């Protein structure tokens, strides 16, 4: 579960290790940025679906529902924009690594139940959103050339920060139960 906390470091390492770019100037194309952004949203929808299957806690379930709906809305807008721009999101080393890490996390979440699950899920949500915010602000937005795609990513950041604040609130609730 701690993998996600090192997500930003992992992003840089992936670029360097795959030789895609130089160490001092990691580079993603706009189609790769779009694919990475959509993948990050899909991953959190996947976590929410597990929560809806396994949790009975109303605060956790409400949070998971919001995550699923909001991240679907973001994906819909990203797809609409990509269609409008004629851009085909491109699979890349970052999105592959994200999916690989997510599978590991989902496996761990599925192995838990009851209060242990609730804590593991919401702790992961806090860490995941921190990592995604850092990656979007520190890598994806700076790397994006298309102004409309950049604007979409900039518009997503407040939602991610609100999700983080909501997750931290639920985290405190869950810890007290």
């Amino acid at each position, binding site marked *: 579960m701690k993998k996600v906390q090192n997500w930003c470091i992992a992003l840089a390492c992936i670029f360097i290790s795959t030789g895609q770019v130089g160490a001092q100037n990691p580079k993603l194309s706009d189609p790769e940025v779009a694919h990475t952004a959509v993948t990050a949203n899909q991953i959190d929808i996947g976590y929410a679906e597990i929560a809806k299957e396994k949790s009975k806690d109303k605060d956790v379930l409400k949070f998971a529902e919001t995550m699923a709906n*909001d991240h679907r*809305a*973001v994906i819909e807008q990203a797809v609409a924009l990509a269609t409008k721009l004629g851009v085909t999101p491109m699979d890349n080393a970052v999105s592959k690594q994200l999916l690989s890490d997510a599978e590991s996390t989902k496996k761990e979440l599925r192995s838990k139940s009851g209060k242990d699950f609730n804590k593991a899920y919401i702790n992961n949500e806090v860490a995941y959103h921190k990592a995604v915010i850092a990656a979007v602000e520190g890598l994806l937005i700076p790397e994006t050339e298309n102004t409309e795609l950049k604007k979409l990513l900039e518009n997503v950041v407040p939602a991610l920060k609100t999700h983080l604040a909501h997750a931290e609130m639920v985290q405190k609730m869950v810890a007290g139960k």
Partner: protein
Amino acid sequence: MILLLTLAVLNSCSDEKKEPPPTAVGHESIGESIDPTQTDSALRNTDTYHTVVIRQMEFSPAELKVNKGDTIAWINQDITEHDITELNEEKWSSSKLPAGASWSMVVSEGADYYCSIHVVMKGKLIIE
């Protein structure tokens, strides 16, 4: 807000959530009368009509001074759906507002309110 242009098929409130109390606080749907892409300077604001924009997960203005009987309109210019719900007892609530939708009510008392979907989003109506 080009993205909103591509998205916005305005759909005003459904009735799935609580209705406002008919005597304390009235409301009317005005979802079809507001252009969600208009700029702040183009939004309708008079002595008795006030517009609150929901954008980037905030109510703007978050705090509004009004008189009893004034109409408050909330317009969702954000990328996700929101609602407007009285905070303490959930005395009144809009339905879920998709991106581009709006909702209004006539205010008869001050209130703290929030988005029950994104519970950290809060606003306040102050009766002068």
